């Protein structure tokens, strides 16, 4: 690989590393601002002064902030995620199952959304300006302009209240059989898939149209090539980079969307866990969940950037 490309990619990865450090600091600082004395909360109102002081010392709560930050970081790196205040369980056990649930939701959404979005994005670019394109475009703009909870409520209204195909809000914990699983998953997946597909369609369409504006596309037209041929053989190979970039960026929207969707559908995932932890001021849990989110987000946008670097035709030698 070209030396310049390698150095750019390494630079981007290095940047990601620095970012993660800054982000972890921000997360730590933000959670430290949560009001209330942690030791007091844990021991309850009836605790004595000495007991609270003792607990504070045992939890190193009186150490300077930097020291606590570093200790926390070291713990994370070693896999020690700490203990949840509210549940008095090891966090690692607590989030294990929930993380798996969220990942499952994200995976299913991706599998559903990406092919549909790519197809729609590319074909609308191919037939830009026609009725098909304008209809899809209007829908897409509508979807990305509205809050996720609105998509969720509309989905519930349409599928559960009016059509009665799917159960409404509660996630049945006793699932018997594949059909039940599908029915339980359907609503959250539909909501999330609609939201990120819209983003993906918009960005893919823009990427393909950008490549179609290139002069070599006009040249292909003047050689007698047909529209599908121009798009598939000339535009697409040059648009692959921006398209993958678009996919990665759209998937990063999952991180935010999942917070709303899990809350509204009561889905037992890690986002719901974090929202509940904020309500109970469960510091270590909030910190860990936030780090997981930030890490996933960072991985996706770094991947998107690296794809953009690799696919830049000017760097190709």
């Amino acid at each position, binding site marked *: 690989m070209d030396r310049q490309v390698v150095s750019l990619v390494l630079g981007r990865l290095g940047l990601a590393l620095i970012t993660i450090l800054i982000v972890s600091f921000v997360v730590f600082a933000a959670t430290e601002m949560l009001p209330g004395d942690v030791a007091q909360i844990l021991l309850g109102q009836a605790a004595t002064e000495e007991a609270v002081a003792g607990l504070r010392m045992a939890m190193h709560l009186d150490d300077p902030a930097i020291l606590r930050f570093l200790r926390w970081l070291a713990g994370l790196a070693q896999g020690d995620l700490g203990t949840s205040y509210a549940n008095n369980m090891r966090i690692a056990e607590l989030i294990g199952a929930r993380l798996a649930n969220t990942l499952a939701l994200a995976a299913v959404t991706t599998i559903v959304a990406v092919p549909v979005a790519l197809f729609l994005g590319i074909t609308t670019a191919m037939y830009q300006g026609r009725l098909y394109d304008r209809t899809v475009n209007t829908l897409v703009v509508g979807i990305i302009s509205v809050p*996720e909870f609105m998509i969720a409520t*509309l989905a519930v209204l349409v599928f*559960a209240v009016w059509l009665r195909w799917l159960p409404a*809000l509660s996630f049945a914990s006793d699932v018997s059989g594949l059909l039940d699983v599908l029915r339980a998953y359907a609503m959250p997946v539909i909501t999330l898939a609609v939201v990120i597909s819209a983003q993906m369609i918009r960005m893919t369409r823009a990427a393909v149209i950008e490549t179609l504006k290139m002069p070599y596309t006009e040249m292909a037209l003047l050689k007698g090539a047909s529209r599908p041929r121009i798009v598939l053989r000339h535009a697409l190979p040059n648009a692959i980079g921006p398209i993958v970039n678009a996919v990665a960026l759209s998937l990063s929207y999952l991180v*935010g969307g999942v917070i709303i969707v899990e809350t*509204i559908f009561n889905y037992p995932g890690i986002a719901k866990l974090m929202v509940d932890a904020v309500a109970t001021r469960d510091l270590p849990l909030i910190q860990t969940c*936030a780090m997981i989110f930030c890490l996933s987000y960072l991985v996706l946008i770094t991947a998107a950037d690296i794809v953009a670097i690799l696919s830049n035709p000017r760097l190709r030698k």
Partner: protein
Amino acid sequence: MAITFPTTPRRIGYRFNAVGAVALAVILFWAVIALVGPWLTPYPPGEIVDFDYFGPMSAQFWLGTDYLGRDILSRILAGARYTVGISLAAVIIAVTAGVVLGMTAAVIGGWLDTVLSRLLDALNSIPSKLFGLVVVAGLGSSIPVLIGTLAVIYTPGAYRFARALAVNVNTMDFVAVARARGEGTPYLIGQELLPNILGPVLADLGLRFVFIVLLLSGLSFLGLGVQPPNADWGSLVRENIGGLPFGAPAVLMPSLAIASLTISVNLLIDNLPTKIRDRSA
């Protein structure tokens, strides 16, 4: 490759198309409501006026009633000032900060540019909902905190955009001519750069306004935004979510209000009135 047109008489003016006009009307409508909403409500927003909670849309209650029996229309009209007001304040702060920092970074360059860009990129790497969640949970949900948090979240994006524009203009010959004349940095930023990026920056302001409205509504929906007894549109959805299985209008109406605002802003940006200027010798 350029197509040049023969000389024609000059015509200056604005050309609106229908969609742009409608969008602008909706936005102005909500702006007015945000200012005088509480005086226009048919019923006092906080008062229970109907024993039938989650009541349907009727001649008496145009948009139905909420989970306690209060008039939804009134609550939406009253809530407009929170949604619109907070978002507008936040976006103005964010874009102003972003533009000033972006232009300075573009013109001065060097270490200032690098440090600022790295810092703001790092800030951008935190998912916005998460950041809002954690900060607001920590510092409380007062209006100033909300405005400040939202502004901080969206400053990096505005910075990046303004900086890219400014860098582009900076390389133009007319800036080199001004520099060669001996002009100082403040002149370059204010007179040469700013007028040329103002248009796109205003469009960007519109886009960020939409993002902020959506984020604020999302936070309120999670219970971390505007707190009772005040309610913005997101809080209204949260309060009335129990009516969803019954298909009550109370759940949908505030969402539709949000949608009308955000879609109108998006449509206006896409259909900006174009200044027409026929080229003439």
